[in-house]
């Protein structure tokens, strides 16, 4: 038994040791230098947010945010490695260095800016609203005060929905659970990003649902980097790439390719940044 224990421990330590890299040390704090030295850009993303970020059976990540991340890594000349993050750990992973860039449908809010830095321009935007059954014919938010809705844990709009709109929010770990809960009748609606609801409504599965209420608090999403990277070459390189993707329409194309109706924010950004000559 002793030798088996020792064997397992040694194997584990060896596996860890192999990921040590002396080369990265000469870069100091410069994330861009470290990423290029390692040849890998570690990007944190969710894995349960169809079609922005989800999994294929072979374990790889797919989705619009995955495509954006892959393009950024290609431009930097490195490989993209995606790491699954949850709302419980995404900012901590970034701060600790487990990921260098976070593209995980995070809304750019003042509270979060105290912990991480968001890269500007923002790459996406959404407001929040409710996916309601067609049987519910409310047109004003006030009509639904006191009703229970299902949401995902960690969403920034859970608190305002409860405090300002008077809804009772039942939060679950992921979107699969919220759907299952709603079908069981534990809540009357799904509280989500309006773009995600649009995607759902284009699926015949949700033919009996609609989105009658006006979207609230349209808040841009941001890619997050560590605060030290905000004004450093790494953060600025990402900023430039996002601006370029708005400008040449890549983001609009990626959105369409994943079955999402072109959102107002992306159209607006493309118009604002596009070439004035060509």
């Amino acid at each position: 038994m002793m030798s088996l224990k020792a064997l397992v421990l040694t194997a584990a330590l060896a596996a860890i040791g192999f990921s040590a890299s002396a080369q990265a040390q000469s870069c100091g704090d410069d994330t861009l230098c470290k990423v290029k030295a390692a040849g890998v850009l570690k990007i944190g993303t969710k894995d349960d947010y169809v079609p922005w970020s989800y999994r294929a059976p072979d374990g790889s990540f797919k989705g619009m945010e995955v495509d954006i991340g892959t393009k950024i890594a290609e431009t930097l000349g490195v490989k993209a490695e995606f790491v699954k993050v949850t709302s419980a750990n995404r900012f901590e992973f970034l701060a600790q260095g487990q990921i260098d860039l976070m593209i995980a449908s995070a809304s750019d809010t003042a509270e979060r800016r105290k912990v991480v830095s968001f890269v500007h321009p923002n790459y996406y935007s959404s407001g929040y609203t409710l996916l309601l059954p067609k049987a519910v014919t409310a047109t004003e938010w006030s009509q639904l005060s006191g009703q229970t809705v299902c949401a995902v844990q960690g969403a920034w709009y859970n608190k305002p929905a409860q405090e300002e709109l008077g809804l009772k929010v039942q939060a679950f770990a992921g979107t699969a659970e919220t759907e299952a809960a709603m079908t069981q009748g534990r809540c009357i609606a799904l509280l989500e990003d309006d773009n995600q609801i649009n995607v759902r409504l284009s699926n015949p599965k949700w033919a009996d649902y609609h989105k009658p209420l006006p979207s609230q608090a349209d808040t841009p999403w941001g890619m997050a980097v560590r605060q030290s990277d905000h004004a450093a070459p790494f953060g600025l390189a990402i900023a430039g790439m996002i601006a370029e993707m708005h400008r040449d329409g890549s983001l609009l194309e990626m959105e369409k390719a994943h079955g999402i109706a072109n959102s107002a924010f992306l159209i607006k950004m493309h118009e604002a940044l596009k070439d004035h000559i060509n």
Partner: protein
Amino acid sequence: MITNIQTFFQDLASSGINLTIFYDAFDFDRFVTGLGNTLLLILISALLSIVIGAGCAAILTLSNGFAAAIVRGYIALFRNTPLIVQMYFFYFAIGSIMPVGRNELGLPQPLISSFSWAVLSLSLYSGAFNTETFRAGIGAVHNSYEEAALALGYGKRQAFFSVTAPLALRFSFASLANNLVDLTKATTVAYAVGVAELLYVSNQIWSDSLNTIEMMNVMLVIYLVLTGAVVFIINRVEAAMRLPGFGLGDGQ
């Protein structure tokens, strides 16, 4: 006085220790609700699991047929699979095929709330462990007690319920305390099915206010207090039920 407490914690926040639950009314409400739900979960599940455990132990001792086989299968299943997966299975898988009632608005209304599913799952999980505990307790009662009862004309069932069971209970307290402490800690798993217990509300609070470390410390302290209370209560019950002169039987 409340405003004094609130100001104290607000000042503390500016110096780095951010405990919003003490100065933000909304967070305070949420937190108290979470604590209340945790306490309810512990109480109801503990009672149910003791009943289930005692009942199943009785079945295993008294019969050897179909009922005993079912109990054995139940224990094997619930002790060898993770609680969180059991809860997911109950809530999402079984919950999705249960008949759904309709409320006044004509909207679907589930027959069993998430809290009830959590209680059911926790009780069944802890009940399986309690069954083993009570069985060990029954095994620790020396045969001579049962034989004496039978010699006095008690039937087998009577002997069990009147003589063996009360003695077995006294033997089971230490192990029962263990199981109930595990149950107390296990209530955190109900977070996964949307029950607003302590971990769930703490997660929401630290998602909004980004004070993860502070909230984790608060939770740790609260659970230590809760488990201490459970052990204390069991010890008091044991002391109250102690039979003078009745020991563990191997005092050579």
